[in-house]
């Protein structure tokens, strides 16, 4: 069987994405995630099942099965834009590692076509799976949400032991790695919490950047669309001044930090 025949389940392909990796990118959103982060802005990505969601008052089916060959034309459609901007393909989700064979073959196909590849991931998966995809990834954008495993579990459903271990392994593999932290009020927005994450990021070999992503509510309307409760309702996005303060705290670790992706 050719890699182009491998099947996977996704829920969106978004072109002209400019906040998820370098340049102008096309993002493939994988369906299914191991974690249940309370602030998740793509709640429709969490379940592997194909679902129905209400969007702008209309019913919409979320999730469809595709082969690599079926989606490559759309991923190649913006090749000109990638070349001019230094962009490419980003696998996001959901968690792309939850469908690591499909991801691997999709990434191979991208490399065969000369495209830059990035992934947005929690790296919360057995390292063997990560090892299988790593050779085809140019940039690993990895989330670290909290250094305290218990608090991590409270807001995401899982502890952080595997995540932190995998971060070290990916860093050691030599793949370009950027650490990203969604800054969520009441979850991880104290100076102490950010300082610890930054310290950890700075300790990883080869990791040069930490991105602090301010919490936003842009996914909020999707929760009601899925008939789900939004547990963070009432929480305001962090103020600009607060973000700048946390940025200065993070920078004490010596790593290069920025607000936004």
């Amino acid at each position, binding site marked *: 069987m050719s890699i182009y025949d491998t099947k996977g389940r996704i829920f969106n392909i978004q072109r002209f994405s400019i906040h998820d990796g370098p340049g102008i990118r096309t993002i493939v959103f994988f369906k299914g995630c191991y974690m249940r982060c309370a602030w998740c802005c793509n709640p429709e990505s969490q379940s592997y099942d194909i679902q129905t969601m209400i969007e702008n008052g209309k019913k919409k089916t979320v999730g469809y099965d595709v082969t690599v060959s079926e989606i490559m034309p759309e991923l190649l459609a913006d090749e000109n*834009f990638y070349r001019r901007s230094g962009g490419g393909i980003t696998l996001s989700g959901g968690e792309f590692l939850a469908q690591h064979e499909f991801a691997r073959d999709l990434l191979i196909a991208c490399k065969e076509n000369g495209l830059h590849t990035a992934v947005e991931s929690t790296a919360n998966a057995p390292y063997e799976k990560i090892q299988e995809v790593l050779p085809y990834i140019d940039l690993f954008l990895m989330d670290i949400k909290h250094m305290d495993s218990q608090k991590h579990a409270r807001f995401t459903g899982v502890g952080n032991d595997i995540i932190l271990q995998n971060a070290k392994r990916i860093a050691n593999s030599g793949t370009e790695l950027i650490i990203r932290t969604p800054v969520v009020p009441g979850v991880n927005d104290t100076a102490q919490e950010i300082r610890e994450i930054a310290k950890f990021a700075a300790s990883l070999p080869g990791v040069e950047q930490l991105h602090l992503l301010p919490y936003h509510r842009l996914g909020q309307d999707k929760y009601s669309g899925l008939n789900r409760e939004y547990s963070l309702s009432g929480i305001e996005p962090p103020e600009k001044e607060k973000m700048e303060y946390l940025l200065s705290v993070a920078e004490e670790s010596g790593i290069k930090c920025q607000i936004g992706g």
Partner: protein
Amino acid sequence: MENIKFVLEKSARIDKLIDDLYAKMPEIESARGLLVTESYKSTEDLPIVKRRSAAFSHILENIPIVIRDGELIVGSATVAPRGCQVFPEYSYEWLEAEFDTVATRTADPFFISEKTKAELREAYPYWKGKTTSDLAKSNMAPEAYEAFVTHGMFTPGNYFYNGIGHVNVNYEKVLKIGYRGIITEAKEALKKVDVSDADYVQRINFLTAVIESCEAVVRYARRYSALAKELAKKEKCAIRRAELEKIASNCARVPEFPATDFHEACQSFWFIQLLLQVESSGHSISPGRFDQYMYPYYKKDIDAGKITAEQAQELIDCIWVKLNDINKVRDAVSADGFAGYGMFQNLIVGGQNIYGMDATNDLSYMCLEASMHVPLPQPSISIRVWNGSPQSLLVKAAALTRLGTGLPAYYNDEIIIPSIMARGLTLEDARDYCIIGCVEPQKGGKTDGWHDAAFFNMCRPMELVFSNGMDKGVQIGPETGDVANMQTFEQFYDAYKTQQSYFIKLLVNANNAIDMAHATRCPLPFQSCMVDDCIGRGKSLQEGGAIYNFTGPQGFGIANNTDGLLAIKKLVFEDKTITLSELRDALNANFGYGITGDHAVRITSEIVKEVANNGISITEDIIRSVYEKVTTASTLDPVKKARYQEIKRLIDETCPKYGNDIYEADMFARDVANTYTKEVEKYKNPRGGVFQAGLYPVSANVPLGGQTGATPDGRLAFTPIADGIGPASGRDKKGPTATANSVAKLEQVVASNGTLLNQKFHPSALSGMNGLTKFVALIRSYFDQKGMHMQFNVVTRETLLDAQKNPEKYKTLVVRVAGYSALFTTLSRSLQDDIINRTEQGF
């Protein structure tokens, strides 16, 4: 950090000049109108070109002059700021009819005093039957006139009622040799005229008219010199006195003689720009490659330490303000189409020189900076982009785009140069192109482009297919057969092409009739002396004096016709779920939907008039009941109504749409565009040139859409037609890269009179250096694929706040949310607030 080149401080003078300019409603003044009438009455025995120069001379001798507070560059057509003069030699009846409403209308109001009205009323009778408009009408074939005036199949109204404008003269030459040099050239040319030459009298008349016009300009500048001197004497402030003395010396020297420094060059430029718009009422007098022809004067002063970059910037800013001091009153209908007092003075920076090397210089950046300092509609600033354009210039342009004024427009050298070479320009001339008016390329100083010759609404011939050539009960188009009998898609498509080709022929007739009228009644010796090779040939631009002659009427409606034809192909001929006669009935019934807004009022009053004509007395109840029926379509049989709405749903939801990077749909759009462009280029104009098509509607897609019934793409009656060559509003679902890919598939190179692609952006897409560079990459990528032009509307924070307050005004405003786009007004309040904040903070 954003590192942007040439960020220079704005002098306090500039905001003051802007405030003064916009302090009052602009005013209509009578001086020019009276002077031209007076002169014409006394020159009836002269040949027309000499009457023109005599009138121009008489106007410049006597028109009031004014130096406004704080000006460094002087010369105003009117005493009142942003005022306008009138040009009865082109047309006047419409203004007289609108005397009492022009100050209170919503689009572009002008104040007019009772005294001015009385003076003009006295002058106007002289012009009866003598205008270009009168002659154009009698030059036209009756069917062409009817198609234009009664049926609105196309609208050459701009040149039918006004001067042509749409030119870029040889500013460089005037800066270099002055009008004294041009007079010398004309005298040399006179010597070469032999008494036995067949065109002896034409050349003699034209050349002497040129000399008379140039002498008039020189005297006009001296009037300003004297005024400045006088004001300087009275001036108490020493700084201002020195400025006035410099102005006096500038105006004594230029534009008669070559400019010797940057300030003189700026003043000389301004006199040219101003007086072109006193000689004729044509708009789109475009300064073109200002950064190129002004650069030697800037460089010389900078190198000599005579001026600083800040001082040069202040002078450029002053010119930008002056470009907004020129104004034009249009009839109420045109004012809607050109809303915003548009003068379309297009000024372009960057691009290649005649050797194919990059021509960017300091002034290229400083012109963009000026547009940041002076956030006004003029000049229409443009930028030429090619593979060798410095990134820093494009980043600077992107930073200007981010301000949300819709400027600059971006043009692609890599496609425009071959496009106009294919029309016969030499390689060097093509490389030196500039842009006229909205989007029209030409080689400045050598071309009479007659760009913007007419709007051709491609949706109208489509309507006539369904009516078998009938409009308003009259057979105006060919009989292409009852649609009910059409058996194949090709039959239908051929009928469309037959209708369209017929009206293109009538359009050509109308354009050529108007063209002849201008040559006969309004040759322009002053304008002509700055375009090659009028002096050499001894005839005006209007008579074919230019080296390159074109007529460029622009078509629009590609997206609607493409989507409509694709829907017919699929639903009627493939799926067979609807029939053509059913579709015709659905279109006539506006898909079972009521008519809303102003159109409902208009239609109601038409129906009520009809009822009254039948002798029925009209009561409020009758009016209310008619209005109710018009707005709700309640008279329709409910079964039919439901079926028509279902047809619209099938079209909207199940048919492919242009603009989403669907290969077959986009290639079909290419074919639809070619039905217009390749038909237009078959024809010739009376100046010895050819027709060339443009594909853009300016803003006429809204008013002309208001005259177009429902169309088979599911567009409701009287709503706007698609803007430019982009997808129909709201039908592009895949973002800007997909749209760019689609539009790039059109054969834009054939549309050598220009194409227009508008894109809308959320400012967060341009935040930070990162956002700016990605934005530049987007433009370059579209241009890699042979796109010709691109411009951007950036939604500002103010717009979003206004949309929160007035959601009914922003029903179609789309914003990017998380991984999807949504209608802004449908989002929850807190989400809207977040998006507004994100807009401001840029993350």
